[in-house]
């Protein structure tokens, strides 16, 4: 499950290797804002995962569930 995400983490390294052509300068403005938006997206994904897990755990182990009542007894 981790493999695609780990592979994805190496994409920017490959990107940068081919990014700069001779005689052209890196556009810092574009790079910095691009990084900001990508990291913001990553932060929202982490937030969604955390929230999703919390909702799932609360729903899966809710007290009202018959199975849980059996375990409690």
């Amino acid at each position, binding site marked *: *499950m*981790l493999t695609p*995400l*780990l592979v*994805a*983490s*190496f994409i*920017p*390294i490959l*990107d*940068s290797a081919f*990014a*700069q052509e001779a005689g052209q*300068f*890196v*556009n*810092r*403005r574009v*790079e*910095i*804002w*691009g*990084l900001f938006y*990508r*990291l913001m997206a*990553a932060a929202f*994904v*982490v937030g969604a*995962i*955390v929230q999703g*897990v919390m909702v*799932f*755990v609360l729903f*899966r182990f809710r007290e009202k569930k018959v199975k849980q009542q059996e375990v409690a007894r």
Partner: protein
Amino acid sequence: MGHATIEWVYIAAVTAILVYVGADSWVAEKLIDEIPEEAETIKVIAQQWFWTFEHADGTKEVGELHLKAGKAYRFEVTSKDVIHAFNIPFYTAMIDAVPGRINKVWFAPDQVGEFLIQCREYCGLLHSQMRAKLIVEA
């Protein structure tokens, strides 16, 4: 699905995203920190409460900086009194101006026009007025 499965999925997904964040940031920082060899040096001197710029040919400007679009510039930033910070918001360039130290930042202006240069480190009474004008010419 066992009790611990969801925790492992959660840990793996978050760890993978954080690895991506670290790799992406590292690559971007490496890319933007590398000063091109052909960059022209401009000495930036900060003092309460104005900016002085010295071009490679020795000409000085106070409160205004004239640059050419499409050229790369390396700024060697220092201060004569307290700590200031040299910031050009439009070009996302910012570095501290520290007395006795020369800090470097670079960028290549790509758009013609007038842009703000502002001190970003509180440096005393007129800190908010410690501005200069960046004029990028074709």
